[in-house]
């Protein structure tokens, strides 16, 4: 039985490596402006934040609605830190304010600081809220996300955040270089690597002793506490770690977008992520990743035609016009939630043994149906 697990693990590694190779090849051979690269990049970024949300909502049983807020902190921290000082001092970005942050860092430091800034805010929110017995986290984090968005657009903070104006000219995906050279790093591959490393860390955490403690809290708080698991400490830990990775994904989003603005991180973004987590299956990492890519592909690519007058070869400019995509999209999501109430994956992970088992079961089911009496 242990051996089988090991084999499964190797198959999973091989499959993941294959995906990375495929992405690398695709990026070298296809036109880089193809929509598929948008889907891949955004899908990977959303995967990371969905997985971090799942760590909290799915594995620790804490319901937070602050993801957009933490992504905002991450995105801004990153853009402020990595914008070259020379750019900050000219008027190209900080037009109405004099930039107060007069240093700049590299991409890696920027990404880490983005995570740390989000984690710091999470720690401060968690301190009062997570000590309470009842679950006020959802309200507190949603409120926090709304307030932080307003604060970042506040005039007084203009020298730091550039007020309500756009941040740009910081280090983005085109500035990533292959280490020790001046050759640009393939951008899609970079996003995949960055998000992949973060997701791998979350998976390692979930499968560690601490991950089991989180699940114990989710399953039965009273029993967890009675078995010596400090509720506050572990909840705070899960919340801070989840927010750290939300911050990193916010920074990656900023890198991908080239520009960033506080107004973009609305509660609707959090709901979008929540939807992805629910569709993928609460408590399933692979489910969250699959759902992210499907969601982004559907909203950015496959259903685009519904807004543009032409879908699946049918021309109907009167029906397929702006807004129709949202309508169809909502219906699809409603169907998924109705018919797969536990999401695509439930709380399981994708596994090849599972796929084979399912396939076999289907075959034997077919056989007994034809078989007749002795079943």
């Amino acid at each position, binding site marked *: *039985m242990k051996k089988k697990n090991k084999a499964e693990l190797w198959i999973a590694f091989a499959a993941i490596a294959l995906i990375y190779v495929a992405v690398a090849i695709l990026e070298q051979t296809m036109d880089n402006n193809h929509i598929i690269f948008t889907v891949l990049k955004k899908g990977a970024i959303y995967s990371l934040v969905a997985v971090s949300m799942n760590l909290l909502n799915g594995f620790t049983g804490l319901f937070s609605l602050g993801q957009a807020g933490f992504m905002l902190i991450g995105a801004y921290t990153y853009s402020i830190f990595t914008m070259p000082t020379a750019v900050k001092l000219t008027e190209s970005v900080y037009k109405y304010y004099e930039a107060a942050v007069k240093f700049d860092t590299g991409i890696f430091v920027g990404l880490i600081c983005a995570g740390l800034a989000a984690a710091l805010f999470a720690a401060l929110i968690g301190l009062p809220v997570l000590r309470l017995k009842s679950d006020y986290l959802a309200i507190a984090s949603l409120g926090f996300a709304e307030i932080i968005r307003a604060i970042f657009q506040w005039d007084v903070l203009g020298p730091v955040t550039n007020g309500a104006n756009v941040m740009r000219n910081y280090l983005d995906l085109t500035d990533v270089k292959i280490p020790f050279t001046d050759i640009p790093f393939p951008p899609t591959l970079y996003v995949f690597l960055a998000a992949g490393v973060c997701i791998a*860390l979350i998976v*390692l*955490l979930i499968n*560690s*002793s*601490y991950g*089991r*403690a989180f*699940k*114990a809290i*989710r*399953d*039965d708080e*009273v*029993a*967890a*506490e*009675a*078995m*010596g*698991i*400090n*509720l506050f400490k572990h909840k705070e*830990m899960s919340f801070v*770690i989840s927010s750290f990775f939300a911050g990193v994904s916010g920074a990656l989003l900023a890198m991908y977008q080239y520009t960033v603005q506080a107004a973009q991180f609305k509660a609707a973004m959090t709901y979008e992520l929540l939807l992805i987590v629910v569709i993928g299956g609460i*408590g399933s990492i692979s489910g969250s990743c699959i759902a992210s890519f499907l969601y982004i592909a559907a909203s950015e690519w496959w259903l685009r035609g519904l807004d543009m007058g032409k879908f699946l070869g049918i021309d109907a400019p009167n029906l397929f016009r702006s807004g129709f995509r949202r309508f169809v999209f909502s219906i699809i999501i409603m169907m998924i939630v109705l018919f797969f109430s536990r999401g695509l994956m439930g*709380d399981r992970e994708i596994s090849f043994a599972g796929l084979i088992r399912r396939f076999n079961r289907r075959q034997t089911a077919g056989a007994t149906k034809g078989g007749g009496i002795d079943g």
Partner: protein
Amino acid sequence: MAENVLRLENVTMQFGGVVAVNNLSLEVNKGEIVALIGPNGAGKTTAFNCVTGIYDPTNGMISFDGKTIVANHPRGKMKKLYAGENAKRYTGVRTVDPTPDQVTKLGIARTFQNIRLWKSMTVFDNVLTAKHMRARQNVFSATLRLTYQEEKRMREETAALLEEQNLLQYASDLAVSLPYGLQRRLEIARALATEPKLLLLDEPAAGMNPQETQELGEFIVQIKNKYQLTVFMIEHHMDLVMQFSDRIYVIDFGRLISHGTPAVVQADPKVINAYLGVSE
């Protein structure tokens, strides 16, 4: 003179106007099996919850291994509402109110009357997770597998514990898929995984037939000897209580009405009254 492991002193637990435990004093000595019995709703589980830190008693003191772990006196709203005894006795004492995990860390483990296993976890993980508290690691070293030896040790100990309880064959089954009797066994195994000195069992034989109950009694004696435990249990099965406990405390309506050896308690008219007064 026997060394007492657990000592309750005038413990009162009042919920609003209901005094669930009233002025309860008792002690459990090292190496003993002591039973707490009483009719339904007598306040037995509430007394356990006061010891384990789930409730903060309204008044009284509890000590473990000679150290005060809980101390309280009527405060706030309870100052006026308090209906128990010794209202003034502990007002000078500094209040001590630990959380359940701190109590467990001191060495008191428990099982629950209505089984509380972790539902989504396997039998193995249920026991393994209870070892988390005493593991020497932090979140970074555990995530990055720097303390993999600690993890390995925990897994080995868990396997050994399950083996001893004859549960190893179910290791990869979901805990809740086990038959009822085995779930109770598993809860005991999980409690043992926290390496306790004192084991509190809340109706461990509930729902068991006479033969299973007998086996459970022998099993409790066996683990008590092996791990040098002290056992304090709530139980309704009188055969189990009379056969296996060294001493018995009887409470009714939150008050202690009798205590002593099984023979003494069995013959006490107050006990007979309490049990006949309520239809059993």
